[in-house]
């Protein structure tokens, strides 16, 4: 009888007590995500894949000055400048080799035009090495974009150069 009682207590009292933590988590929101379908928002200063910014009127900010490539410790950036139809300096080729990149963010810091940023994308896997060579077209942000956090900076720059405000 005593044995039976002990078993009943174990089952109905001690076991739930032992599983207390587990049971508690049954009713909590899970910490894991349904990964490929859902993604976790990254920290604001996370350094993922690069993107190239544009001005409000759609022209790319990058002038191909070469400072990012000079700052790059992994030598992952290659560029060739050209003269666009307005006579301004722009990149003809701008490539980042993501296999070489160590995501240190020096390019972002070196950029005098605030053109290159490290974004929040982190999924790099492919079947070919060549697909890790990201070109300018792949990295430029979409043109009419909803918000532009750089409007203020841009205005300040234009003002310093004494350019008319009409473009901004």
């Amino acid at each position: 009888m005593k044995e039976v009682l002990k078993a009943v207590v174990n089952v109905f009292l001690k076991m739930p007590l032992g599983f207390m933590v587990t049971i508690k988590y049954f009713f909590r929101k899970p910490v894991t995500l349904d990964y490929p379908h859902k993604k976790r928002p990254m920290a604001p200063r996370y350094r993922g894949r690069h993107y190239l910014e544009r001005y409000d009127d759609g022209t790319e900010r990058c002038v191909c000055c070469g400072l990012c490539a000079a700052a790059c410790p992994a030598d992952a950036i290659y560029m060739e400048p050209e003269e666009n139809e307005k006579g301004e300096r722009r990149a003809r080729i701008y490539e980042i080799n993501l296999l070489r990149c160590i995501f240190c963010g020096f390019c972002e810091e070196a950029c005098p035009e605030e053109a290159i940023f490290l974004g929040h994308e982190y999924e790099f896997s492919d079947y070919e090495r060549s697909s890790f060579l990201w070109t300018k077209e792949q990295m430029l942000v979409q043109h009419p974009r909803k918000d532009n956090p750089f409007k203020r900076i841009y205005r300040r720059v234009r003002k310093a150069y004494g350019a008319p405000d009409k473009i901004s």
Partner: protein
Amino acid sequence: MADDTRKKTTTKAVATVTLTIDGKSITVPKGTTVLEAALQNGIHIPTFCWHPKLKSVGACRMCYVEIEKMAKLQVSCATEAVEGMVVHTDSDNVKQGRRAIIEFILLNHPLDCPTCDKGGECDLQNLTFEHGYDDSRFDFRKSRFVDEGSTSTFDDVRIGPEIVLNRNRCILCYKCVRANKEAFGEYDLGAYERGNITQINSAPGEKVDNPFSGNLVEICPVGALTNSDWRYKIRVWLTKTTPSLCNFTSSGTNTLFYKEDHQNKIFRTTSRRNDDIDDGWLPDVTRYGYQIVNSPDRLRVPLIKKEGKQVEATWDEALDLIHKHFTEISDKMGSVCIGGLASPSLDNKSLYAFSKFFRTVLNSNNVDFRSDYRMLPPDAETVFSRLCSRPFKIADIDDSDVVFVFGSDLLREHPNEYLRMRKACNFNNARVFVVNPYATKAADIAALEAVYKVGSDEQAINGICLAAIDDNLVSGPKAKALAEKLSPLTLPETSKACGITVDDLRILARALAESRKISFMCGEIVTRSKERETITTAVSNLNLLFGLENKGQVASLARYANSGGACKLGVQPSPAPAVKDKLKEIWGGYPECEPHNTDSMLALMKKEEVAGFFVIGANPIMLHPDRQFVREGLEKLDFLVACDLFESETTEIADVVLPLCSWAEYDGEYVNLEGRSQRAERAVKPMFESRPGCEIIKLITAKYEKSLGEDEQLTSEIQQLLDLDSALPLPTEFMAVKVVVEDKQDEGFEIPLFVTDDPHHCGHLTEKSPSLTSFADDAYLEIGPDLAERLKLKEGDNVRVESPVGKVIVPARISEHIENDVVLIPRNFSSTPITSLLMRKKRIDRVTLSKVDS
């Protein structure tokens, strides 16, 4: 004051002064500026507007120094060093002054370094980091030059075919304007407006397209002047530099290639200052000529002719074919029936290997390096070859008090010597005399520019001699002896014959007689003349009469990059006796067969007595003065091998075409017109399958199962030849000058034609350089305004130029400086076969001009 300073330092500086700079006691010649004194002694003073080869202006005020007992900071570039002066270049006061100047310059200088091509090598950038404030205290809009209707945010203006100006970036150091004026004598760039809106710009309605315009970009301390050559191509820190030389002019101008190894590409050429040669100025042909190296039109693989068509082949096939045909020819007709023509722009080793291959392997004396000479000297011991071998020092032009140019358009032929001549005149008060059949661009500095009648070259020189005798400038036995030799000639007659007035002849004679140090230069009008022996005899008389060689230098200037080397290494049919003896000694034998030069080889080809021909680097069809003659000769050949960089008229008809390396693709040594041997290093890997000349010849030799020797052996043999003193003395006795009456003129052809080089081109390769073709891309007819008016020609009109043997249609270009009835056409463009107008046997080519109604 600055002017005087310069003069004193460069002429004779006897008195010295001792001053103290930063506690260091320094002794310098009197008249030196404080800045120069400091720089000479390793004390660095930052500058923007100062340039070692220009007069000081003190425009930038960056070179502030503190001088004790002087109340304020002084600009050291315009302050003369004085005995006992105590100078501080590093005191707090000076630092404060420099900081203020940088801040002031940056007032209106845009901070667009990311888009500026000077970024990374900018004086302002460097000095701002070194001396400037971290931040600006001025918070207002920078002044900006915007052209109306411009949508660009860059404000760039194209002021010349190659030069782009950004006035916002300009810090008004005036270096470009001063160099243009003082060093190059050009006035197409100037400073306009006043005050805040002062701007550098091209002269109204003009373009900056002078033959030295590239230098303006190089000396700009900021990115205000850039050229399309380097603009938006690459960052300076990604490039490496290789020391090289100019392969187009004969001075051997020292250059620096900026190259990138991964792309195997040269991006620009800058100067590598060598005060003995170039003073740091590069003519545009030197600066932009490198572009042919990376041209996509380069010959890529060897071609061999199969069933009348050139098809691609491997090197081995091509070399086998050459060996097979050359042995066939020598077996059948003897090895004398093979000839060779090399380009005088090849390096020493290639030229030497070429000559050694022909003379030791083929046992033939038919080698030459002159494809474009009208008449080749029949013998090595002529007065002309003596004159050519005379030593000449470019730097000695500087302090000559008389610079005498005879029969040369220096600007086109020898741009470096032209700049030296300007320098001698502007900085050292030399008197410049130009005696030429047409007026040249040196007119503005020339004390007298005497234009003689075309074809009366020797009469002009005789006239000067006679004027000297007549004026008793020279007397005694000398005058008597010469007067005897020239006896039937009298001064008035000669003056009439040559078209220079008696007064002018007297002035020229007086200048020659009174000069203390003279530089006498003969140019292409003499060297390419059919009667050059007669002309040089007259020059030799002149030399004897005035003792010119005793008080300076007399020379006929070599024309191509390694003409000097070719002569010294004996790449002629009959080299100088000393060279010949040396070659016999080195090789242990020398072919005894009769030597033939290019002209006689071509004549033999027509008679089918020369059947095999090997051309390396040269293009005789384009450059030889008788196009038809050359073409007929080459077409009769059994076997023609042509090695060149590009497809040309000669490679078109060749049986085997081999791609040749340019001078930037291998290490080579070149001998300039002074006889100075200089080295050009390999900058890039050989393009496509091209190979250096020396290697090609070695490969062919290997097919004969022979060897020309290892590299070291060749180098030491070349050195032995270069060490020979090849200078032959000019005659020491007066000689009679036969008066040449011009051949009978063809009826109706009256206007003398000179075929020269375009100021932006040289030889047949430069037309492949995009930058140089932006200055001139096709032949044109240069004509004086008077003649143009008489023929009712306007700028740009198409003109039919007809000679007894051919005709071409070219646009007219009116040159203000040509005053008499002569016309000039450049020979550098393959699209217009100018040489088809010329006749080999005529002294003067005469043409008729008629307007083509479009």
